[in-house]
């Protein structure tokens, strides 16, 4: 029994909950139609929207604001939560590419794998992915004042993790989720090549004992984790473990490594302003 089903045990009679079937008569709705239904539900003051049988519909949660919860049963399409500013989206399953694209605030929780380019240019909010992710995760995420984007990946990531990173936190745990519900260490490399290439702010934290110096991208450097950083990530990891039913004690079995920029201006010396 995992959280998925716990979350699913909602009470329909609660006034502000609505269920929307994304595939009435087994025919998946066009994304425009589905999103229009979501907007209608919001207009009618529904605070919790449950989507049934989602099948690749894009832009769910696009630019939505405020106190709102969307539970997606099925497979949301690209650009899940694009430009989102506050709501919470939970996906019971995998999702496609570009989840949390240019997100300003809010939470996206994926009970499965995610595709490529998760959290592109996100300025704030949290994206928690239970299992593995693809390429260019957390590319160009930024931070600003109280905004601090956090991406946590339970499994492993591929190449260009945190490319152009300009703030925030990316955390990769390197776990594997067995069919029987047990959680073990992943047998895959925790990240791909050109890790943090062009990073000029923020940090990437990997849970691994392996040496990955060769994978570092331009401007990225490996540091040992400090006490302050350990304290910073602890509540997020606890929250992550709680959401995805991960026994917290497994986390401490491997050390954390921190990747930070060498400088704020990785390519500063690359240009010349001489008067010609």
């Amino acid at each position, binding site marked *: 029994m995992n959280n998925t089903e716990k979350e699913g045990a909602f009470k329909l009679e609660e006034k502000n909950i609505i269920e929307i079937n994304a595939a009435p008569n087994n025919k998946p709705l066009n*994304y425009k139609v589905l999103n229009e239904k979501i907007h209608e539900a919001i207009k009618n003051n529904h605070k919790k929207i449950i989507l049934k049988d989602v099948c690749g519909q894009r832009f769910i949660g696009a630019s939505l604001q405020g106190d709102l919860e969307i539970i997606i049963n099925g497979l949301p399409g690209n650009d899940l939560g694009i430009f989102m500013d506050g709501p919470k989206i939970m996906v019971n399953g995998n999702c496609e590419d570009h989840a949390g694209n240019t997100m300003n605030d809010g939470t996206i929780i994926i009970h499965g794998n995610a595709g490529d380019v998760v959290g592109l240019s996100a300025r704030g909010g949290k994206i928690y992915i239970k299992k593995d992710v693809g390429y260019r995760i957390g590319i160009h995420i930024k931070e600003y004042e109280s905004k601090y984007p956090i991406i946590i990946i339970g499994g492993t990531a591929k190449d260009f993790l945190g490319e152009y990173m300009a*703030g925030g936190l990316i955390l990769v745990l390197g776990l594997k989720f067995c069919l029987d519900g047990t959680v073990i260490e992943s047998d895959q490399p925790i990240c791909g090549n050109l890790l943090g290439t062009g990073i000029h702010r923020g940090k990437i934290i990997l849970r691994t004992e392996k040496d990955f110096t060769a994978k570092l991208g331009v401007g990225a450097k490996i540091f040992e984790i400090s006490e302050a950083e350990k304290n910073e990530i602890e509540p997020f990891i606890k929250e992550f473990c709680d959401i995805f039913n991960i026994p917290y004690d497994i986390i401490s079995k491997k050390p954390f490594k921190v990747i930070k920029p060498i400088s704020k201006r990785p390519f500063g010396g690359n240009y010349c302003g001489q008067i010609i």
Partner: protein
Amino acid sequence: MSLSHNIPSYFHIKVDRESCKKCKRCTTHCSYGALSFNGERIVADDSKCVACQRCVVMCPGSAIRIVKNESFLPPHGNYTRRIRNILWAQSGNGGVLLSATGNDRPIRTIFDDLLLDACQVTNPSIDPLRETIETKIFFGRKPKKLEFLTDKKDSTKITLKTEFMPNFEIDMPIMIGHMSLGSISYNTCMAIYQASKELNILAGSGEGGLHPDFYEYGSNIITEIASGRFGVDINYLHKAAGIEIKIGQGAKPGHGGHLPGEKVNSLISQTRMIPKGSDALSPYPHHDVYSIEDLAQLIAALKEATRYKVPIGVKIAAVHNSAPIAVGIVRGGADFLTIDGFRGGTGAAPRIIRDHAGIPIELAIAAVDERLRQENLRDEITLVAGGSIRYSADLIKIIALGADVAMCCMPVLIAMGCRVCQQCFRGLCSWGIATQQEYLVKRLDIDVARNRIINLFHSWNEELKEVLGAMGIDSVESLRSNRDRLRYIGPNPKIAEILGVKHAGE
């Protein structure tokens, strides 16, 4: 750098010792550090001078003149001074050379080889002062056709079934191009937005976000979604008249952007929503657009995010294959398409790209217009053309070649006082235009600048009407793509062929 490798200066600052009052005003006005006072007299450092003319204008005794450095290099027709300077600069620094404004190479301008038609006998010209000539434009996507249903029993009952798509009405076929707060100053932005609202034309935000002070002008602003997504939030999407996805820029096709951290002061930080002092890097591509269907997806995402209320467009640089790319973009759902020619401006771009990449806007627009027509897509979209629309003649010619709207930036900056010294990327603009330094920004009076922009475009629009009148056309819609009214007098018949314009005399 050893003295033996100093690059000879272009300019020589002449201070007339007799009329110089030694008030030292020039030394405070020169933001490039070319002028100083040594306790006895004004000292000029020619190597730092960019000929921005600030000192010349500000000297109360009119004692300063900037002249060409007469000490010239041994002449060589192939290894020009420019090429030698490039080589010296690179061998001294080892980096990619930066540049600003548009391509300054002396490449023949096609606009100058085009002549306009006028009415004689077979139809009358129109007096634009006393009779109506219309220059209003609908900015956005149009349906291919309107569907009218006539009632079967009562033929006077007619229903217009087609719902009109979001279109923005502007009073002149003019858009001030995208210049971000960052590349230009707050005062410059404010003057541009105020003038745009007053004139009811459009202005681009650039990709630097939209400062809350500018929200009230949002109904005349097209915000830009570039690869860096700076300052993109709900307000940015919802306050604007339209949104443009920037794929490329004429001055630097295929290149990203880079606002150095030192320019990111609290104002820029607030607008771009990044911490003070941090570099603002725009990745080379959009990392959610690796292919045409991804672009269609981003267009769709923006339409979803704005609930289909504003037009969403795409800007590309004019490159070799602009025509098929344009078709893909229109098919991808763009409501407007902006093409930026190779002479288009920039606040900072690698010189190698600015000077050598892309194609002229005249050819690109002609090719794109023609290709969109072949696919029967042209009339559905608004086609915006930029990349050195220098004055009203260029505006008129580009519309006759097929553009709906002409986009320009440099004329606006020049109207405000820019002397085209081409040092924008250094952030030291002595006229308060391309700088973020408080003491320099203050130099640009918003009211004066705004009025000068208003005057400029008022004059362009009047000149457009004069030409339309002379052509016997009373609405700018009938000039668009009316290549019949252009003739070519340049040396290359192939150009005329691509433009679809006959040679003069034909």
